[in-house]
């Protein structure tokens, strides 16, 4: 013990007299490890604490405080009592000691072990003996922290101080200016308000001392060392001001006054604070200020130049109205909400009726904001405004004005919470106007003005979403109006609005659409066109009908009606009955695709796809393929490539969206159809069974159906096990390597790749890959082989399949691809193949089709292979270089922007090389890579070194024979003009001269870019830029 005591004395001595600050940490360690007790430290400090020299005393207290800061947790209640009493006593001491005393108290307040009564006495001394505002920043912060800590642990005791506590605090924070301390002070003030401290007669003082900062204006220093923003302070202050309703009488006049400010931020702050306040206020507080507040709000919304202020004003009004809606009716029976809303209506309504519709929008927005607050408010305003609006609409003659009125109307009928009553007893606020609203909408729909029609469609959509408003008969009428508009050859924006509205309505009124619109559209589609001379072309009409069918098919009820119509279109274009052409079949496919995409994920639709759509499409396509094979061949659009290609996404999407057990059944059926010719599940008659579709290579019309096989089996989830997988893959491999029809072997390769992608990693997959790679390589290595193209296609797709799932074999295949870049025959194709590797295909290997696609596979590919590419480029013979450049530009072009920006500077020499490559596709894709980099001009330093080459290449391309290249190079030149002036100014005269010819380009789009770019270069280096 004795040695410990001596050690301690030594430490104290060295700290106090020797001024060695590090000894405090040593002492703290000692206390923490239990080497000495805190009271022993006090004893050891004895002499320093009682010294007559304030400096020495300060040093002593400092040591104690620092030790306490380190070890605030290990104190006993007794120790705390002694220490607090000591520190309290020291508060009166010399000013140099004070900072350390405050630090010590702050450290002690972190423990809740204070004996009762001590907190009150410390606070009393604190408030009595210390003038907080004359302290330094750090000490003030200490005082606030002490208050916060004590409020945390000693709430009851502090409340016992009564209003004295508030008074003490108000005095302490008066004229505080530091943002960090203000945040603490606001926190204390908010705690005072929220935790129910007694304010006594100091309510106004507390308000005064905090509201002095309102509206808050604070610009952080340039580098903002403390990370405190104006927004932080505003929110903290708002928390205080809106903390209690007792501030209302002071705050509301202040807000009204400050709203007059010219500073936009101050206005915004006022409005947002008002919104926050009224959520805690009641009518009693607001009563005296309602008209003043309304006048200010109205002025702000009417006259504002900023959308933010307008929005803030509107939500403040809405909050105000909500607050009044909560108020209980007073004894006189005056409904305060009604009184206020009448004021709003009175001031706004006449603007809705002015003949020139000046201020109609701000007024409407104000009314809508007030109405949105509650059911009662909504009711009051609606009943006052709607009749006037509709009356005005009917009497108005100008279309533009009527349209504006309709748009205003739509704002009112927009479905929001408040228009629906809370209890079932009340009805929808619009019920009383149902009939007249419908009349207005339907009459507008019948107008010939497109603007009116569009606006009416929007109103109708809103009306329908009001629960329980429209009657069944109204909906029926609405649907027939919409049907009529679909059939009319209207302007594009009308068609879009009609479809939009139909889509919204069909969600809610499925059966009406299935009963009225679908049969009507079906009738139109199958009506034999009249004489060609009058009316819109029948093809366009049919296409509109099919688009509309797709648009309304978002519920099972409609899909069951609409999809068969489209299938029937396909069937009759297939059989040649009716006057359908391949275009109609394509349109039907597009609509079916849309339906399959937007169908809800329910058992019902899955079953429908499985039972009807998939078998029917397969059957039709099969029959069409067979017809081509007989002699004489029978034509059918379904045997044509574009239609089959359009069918692929329909089938793929439908299979991908099936429920698991259904998708297993479908996949099994399709596999047995293609392998064994099992046609039992198809609905068409007269299909031969036992036909092995993957082996009928002599008949391209049948083997091209492989694309449908691909659509099905490559879209099922990975968990679904395909039957006869080995055999299927072997036959696909055979077909892809032997077929002579590009469409067939490409589909077979894709299908094979899709299956490879989903096979679990392991020995089976490795063996399969070994076999395929062996075959591919042997074909490719034989320069005389007739199926090198086929082998390459298979290689490309298998590479893609492995690449996107990060399979380790991918790199081997990629290297094979790179080595083929120098192949004389395949080189250009290989270069283009890299765009397949890097882009997302639409029909196979998609995430939607449950393929195994890892994120960022492109970046990975790029990092792994860019060096190889550059190396290959450098070592390649001259005539092979373009292939590398093309591959590079495909790869880079598909990378995400961010990666491009960071990687491009390193590749710049190569890209510049690519600009001189004669292939225009390479030029274009390189220019489109370069443009964002040039715009960013961040890596300007690297670019500047190459500037000479860059400018020369770009100028050369402005006379390219391809319009798009000319445009892109001009855009890049425009971006270059924004480089640092000293870098580009040497090129100014040359660029200006070179840009004169493009001003006379034969294409207007090129001239437009040339004018813009030349203008920028002219401004370069001259005054006034």
């Amino acid at each position, binding site marked *: 013990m004795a040695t410990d005591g001596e050690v301690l004395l030594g430490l104290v001595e060295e700290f106090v007299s020797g001024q060695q600050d590090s000894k405090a940490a040593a002492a703290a360690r000692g206390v923490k490890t239990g080497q000495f007790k805190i009271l022993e430290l006090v004893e050891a400090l004895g002499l320093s604490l009682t010294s007559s020299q304030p400096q020495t005393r300060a040093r002593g207290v400092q040591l104690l405080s620092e030790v306490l800061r380190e070890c605030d947790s290990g104190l006993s209640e007794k120790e705390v009592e002694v220490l607090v009493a000591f520190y309290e006593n020291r508060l009166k001491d010399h000013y140099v000691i004070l900072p350390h005393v405050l630090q010590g108290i702050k450290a002690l307040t972190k423990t809740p072990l204070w004996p009762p009564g001590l907190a009150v006495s410390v606070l009393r001394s604190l408030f009595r003996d210390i003038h907080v505002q004359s302290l330094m920043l750090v000490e003030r912060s200490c005082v606030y922290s002490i208050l916060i800590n004590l409020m945390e642990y000693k709430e009851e005791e502090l409340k016992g101080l009564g209003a004295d506590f508030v008074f003490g605090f108000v005095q302490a924070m008066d004229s505080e200016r530091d943002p960090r301390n203000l945040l603490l002070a606001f926190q204390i003030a908010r705690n005072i308000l929220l935790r129910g401290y007694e304010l006594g007669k100091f309510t106004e003082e507390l308000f005064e001392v905090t509201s002095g900062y309102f509206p808050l204006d604070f610009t952080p220093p340039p580098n903002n060392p403390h990370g405190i923003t104006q927004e932080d302070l505003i929110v903290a202050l708002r928390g205080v001001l809106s903390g209690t309703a007792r501030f209302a009488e002071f705050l509301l006049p202040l807000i009204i006054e400050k709203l007059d400010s010219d500073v936009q931020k101050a206005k915004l702050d006022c409005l947002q604070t008002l919104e926050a306040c009224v959520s805690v206020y009641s009518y009693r507080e607001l009563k005296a200020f309602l008209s003043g507040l309304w006048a200010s709000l109205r002025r702000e919304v*009417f*006259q504002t*130049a*900023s959308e933010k202020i307008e929005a803030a004003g509107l939500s403040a009004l809405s909050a105000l109205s909500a607050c009044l809606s909560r108020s209980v009716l007073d004894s006189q029976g005056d409904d305060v909400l009604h009184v206020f809303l009448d004021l709003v209506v009175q001031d706004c309504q006449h603007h809705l009726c002015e003949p*020139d*519709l*000046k*201020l*109609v*929008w701000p007024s409407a927005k104000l009314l809508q904001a007030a109405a949105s607050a509650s059911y009662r408010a909504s009711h009051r305003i609606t009943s006052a405004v709607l009749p006037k609006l509709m009356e005005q609409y009917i009497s108005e003659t100008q279309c*533009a004005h009527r*349209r*504006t009125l309709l*748009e205003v109307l739509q704002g009112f009928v927009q479905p929001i919470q408040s228009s629906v009553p809370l209890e079932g007893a009340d009805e929808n606020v619009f019920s009383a106007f149902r009939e007249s609203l419908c009349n207005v909408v339907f009459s507008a729909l019948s107008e010939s003005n497109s603007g009116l029609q569009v606006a009416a469609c929007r109103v109708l959509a809103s009306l329908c979403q009001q629960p329980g408003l429209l009657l069944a008969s109204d909906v029926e009428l609405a649907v027939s109006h919409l049907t009529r508009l679909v059939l009319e050859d209207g302007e594009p924006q009308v068609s879009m609005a009609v479809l939009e509205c139909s889509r919204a309505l069909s969600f809610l009124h499925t059966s009406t659409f299935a009963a009225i619109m679908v049969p009507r559209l079906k009738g139109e589609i199958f009506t034999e066109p009249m004489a060609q001379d009058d009316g819109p072309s029948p093809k366009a009409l049919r296409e509109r009908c099919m688009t509309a069918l797709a648009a309304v098919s978002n519920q099972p009820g409609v899909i069951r009606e609409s999809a068969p119509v489209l299938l029937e279109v396909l069937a009759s274009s297939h059989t040649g009955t009716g006057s359908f052409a391949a275009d109609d079949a394509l349109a039907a496919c597009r609509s079916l695709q849309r339906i399959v995409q937007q169908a809800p994920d329910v058992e019902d639709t899955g079953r429908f796809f499985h039972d009807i759509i998939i078998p029917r499409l397969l059957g039709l396509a099969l029959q069409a393929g067979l017809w081509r094979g007989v002699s004489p061949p029978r034509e059918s659009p379904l045997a044509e490539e574009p239609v089959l290609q359009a069918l692929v996404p329909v089938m793929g999407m439908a299979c991908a969206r099936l429920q698991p057990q259904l998708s297993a059944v479908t996949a099994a059926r399709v596999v047995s159809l293609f392998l064994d010719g099992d046609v039992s599940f198809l609905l068409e008659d007269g299909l031969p069974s036992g036909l092995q579709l993957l082996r009928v290579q002599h008949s391209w019309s049948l083997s091209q159906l492989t694309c449908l096989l691909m659509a099905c089996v490559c879209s099922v989830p990975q968990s679904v096990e395909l039957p006869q997988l080995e055999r299927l893959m072997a036959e696909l491999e055979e077909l892809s390597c032997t077929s002579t029809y590009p469409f067939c072997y490409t589909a077979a390769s894709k299908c094979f790749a899709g299956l490879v992608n989903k096979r679990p990693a392991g020995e089976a997959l490795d063996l399969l890959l070994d076999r395929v790679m062996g075959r591919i390589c042997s074909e490719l290595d034989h320069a005389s082989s007739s199926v090198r193209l086929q082998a390459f296609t298979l290689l490309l797709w298998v590479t893609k399949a492995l690449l996107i799932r990060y399979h380790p074999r991918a790199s081997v295949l990629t290297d094979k691809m790179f080595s083929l870049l120098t192949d004389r025959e395949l080189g250009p194709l290989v270069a283009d193949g890299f765009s397949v590797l890097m882009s997302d295909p639409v029909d196979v290997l998609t995430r939607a089709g449950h393929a195994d696609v890892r994120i960022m596979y492109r970046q990975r590919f790029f990092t792994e292979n860019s060096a190889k590419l550059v190396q290959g480029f450098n070592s390649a013979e001259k005539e092979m270089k373009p292939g590398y450049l093309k591959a590079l530009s495909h790869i880079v072009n598909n990378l995400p922007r961010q990666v491009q920006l960071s990687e491009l500077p390193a590749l710049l020499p190569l890209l510049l090389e690519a600009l001189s490559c004669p292939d225009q596709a390479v030029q274009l894709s390189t220019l489109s890579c370069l443009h964002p980099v040039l715009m960013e001009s961040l890596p300007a330093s690297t670019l500047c070194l190459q500037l000479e080459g860059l400018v020369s290449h770009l100028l050369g391309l402005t006379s390219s024979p*391809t*319009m798009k290249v000319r445009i892109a190079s001009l855009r890049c030149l425009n971006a270059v003009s924004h480089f640092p002036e000293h870098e580009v100014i040497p090129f100014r005269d040359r660029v200006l001269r070179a840009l*004169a010819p493009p*001003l*006379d380009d*034969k*294409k*207007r*789009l090129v*001239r*437009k870019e040339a*004018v*813009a770019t*030349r*203008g*920028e270069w*002219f*401004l370069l280096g*001259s*005054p*006034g*830029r």
Partner: protein
Amino acid sequence: MSGGTLLENANPLIFQRSGERPVTLEEEDENFADPIDDREVFDILAVLPTDQVMTPNVLVYAVYPRDAYHTTLHLIRSINDPEHPLSLEELNVVEEMRVHVNDQASTVGVEFTPTIPHCSMATLIGLSIKVKLLRSLPDRFKIDVHITPGTHTAEEAVNKQLADKERVAAALENSHLLEVVNHCLNTKSA
């Protein structure tokens, strides 16, 4: 250019923009040659900002709302926002019907209308238009810029100045004048 002249016409009428010229199929066709036409030259001029010469910096909320609220609001806002000065089109200084282009004969004629008959900035506006056209059209064009007849008090004098090649060239030697003109030609901020 000084504060006083800015307020000359503090409350101008504001006109709606005619919107982007839609791109036609012919324009996208490589083989088709599009002649330079009125609209094209108008589009070059329409976007030029006017803040240096005549944008008011005070405007009461009395702008007549047009067809749709948002357009008007946009216009009103663009007045208050110094970063989006009004364009020549929005003040109706240039109109498509007052631009005459003959591609074959290589002539361009532009009539511009000062916002008020005694607008002291008319020469400057004319000069800006002329310089913009010189920079934006092929050399072969003969460019004629003048004030719409009967819309300005000093019409003749201004027209004469604008037609005089020497004086235009001399004006552009003056770096202060060039600065103002360049500022009017800087469409980046607009």
